[in-house]
């Protein structure tokens, strides 16, 4: 089972070795300068947070309506990754904001809705950890609600007037910045896939342990 770790470790090593060098070679932004380079990790982390929230929601729907136990394992794994990538976004963002905007935090639409999305999936994890019997189905419902929030979070910068850059920033990126950004995004996507696979394996193992305990009780 630990072989599921190898792709994650390789992906993390590539990320560590290559991405910072590519990011350092990327051109400086005109008004923000050096601090804009947080963008190359901040935005891919946010992308993976949204992807993971959608994966969790879809897996929860399959578990709720299709009654497939393995879909629940995927949902738990994806929810944990929402929490991990979400905390990365919520820490790197204010570090960038302190220099760029002069404040650590603004209660604008994008920042507030991202925090709420992260809190929803933290609530999901707490529910699964401490909720007892039936928490799997209740958590699945909560995950569906969390997935429904993702479009609001994404489009909030376009609908409301915020300090946060709009979604068009990525598509209109300067050609000199594109290799660093897409390499970083690809590395994060690869790392996400490996982490999800490893985490699902962990949930599969826990389910097997539970079944073996039941089998042992039957023997006794």
């Amino acid at each position, binding site marked *: 089972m630990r072989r599921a*770790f190898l792709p994650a470790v390789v992906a993390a090593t590539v990320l560590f070795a290559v991405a910072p060098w590519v990011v350092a070679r990327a051109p400086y932004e005109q008004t923000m300068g050096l601090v804009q380079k947080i963008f190359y*990790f901040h935005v891919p982390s946010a992308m993976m947070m949204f992807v993971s929230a959608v994966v969790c929601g879809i897996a929860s729907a399959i578990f709720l309506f299709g009654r497939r136990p393995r879909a629940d394992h995927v949902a738990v794994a994806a929810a944990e990754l929402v929490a991990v990538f979400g905390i990365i976004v919520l*820490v790197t963002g204010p570090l960038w904001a302190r220099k760029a905007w002069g404040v650590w935090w603004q209660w604008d639409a994008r920042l507030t809705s991202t925090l709420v999305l992260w809190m929803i999936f933290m609530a999901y994890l707490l529910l699964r950890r401490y909720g007892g019997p039936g928490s799997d189905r209740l958590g699945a419902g909560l995950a569906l609600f969390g997935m429904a929030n993702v479009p609001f979070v994404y489009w909030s910068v376009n609908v409301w007037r915020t300090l946060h850059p709009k979604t068009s920033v990525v598509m209109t990126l300067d050609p000199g910045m594109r290799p660093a950004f897409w390499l970083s995004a690809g590395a994060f996507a690869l790392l996400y896939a490996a*982490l999800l696979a490893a985490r699902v394996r962990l949930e599969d193992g826990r389910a*097997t*342990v539970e079944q073996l305990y039941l089998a042992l009780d039957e023997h006794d």
Partner: protein
Amino acid sequence: MRHATVLVLLAAILAVATPGEGAPRPTSGDPTFALSVQQPSAPPPAPLIPEGFEPVGERPPAEQLPAAPFVMAAYAFVWVALLGYLWSIWRRLGAVERELADLTRRIEDAGRRA
């Protein structure tokens, strides 16, 4: 008649009180006005400490936040978070594998005894 008299008196009072263009004005060189008229002096020197707020176009370099600590802190946190999560999964997987091995052995032992 009385009204006309009042109006004439008012006009006379106003004519005396208001200096016309032809009225003589005090001059600096006239000694008659030396004691009663203040000589125009040079403008006072600018105070060393400004009395009010003065806007500037850009913050001086000494007042600007350096960007490098924020960039380094952000990247360091990303690595700590990801590697920390990897370590967490590694640890939990190891515990599950040990538990699986133990349970498998116990079930085999139970099966042999049965």
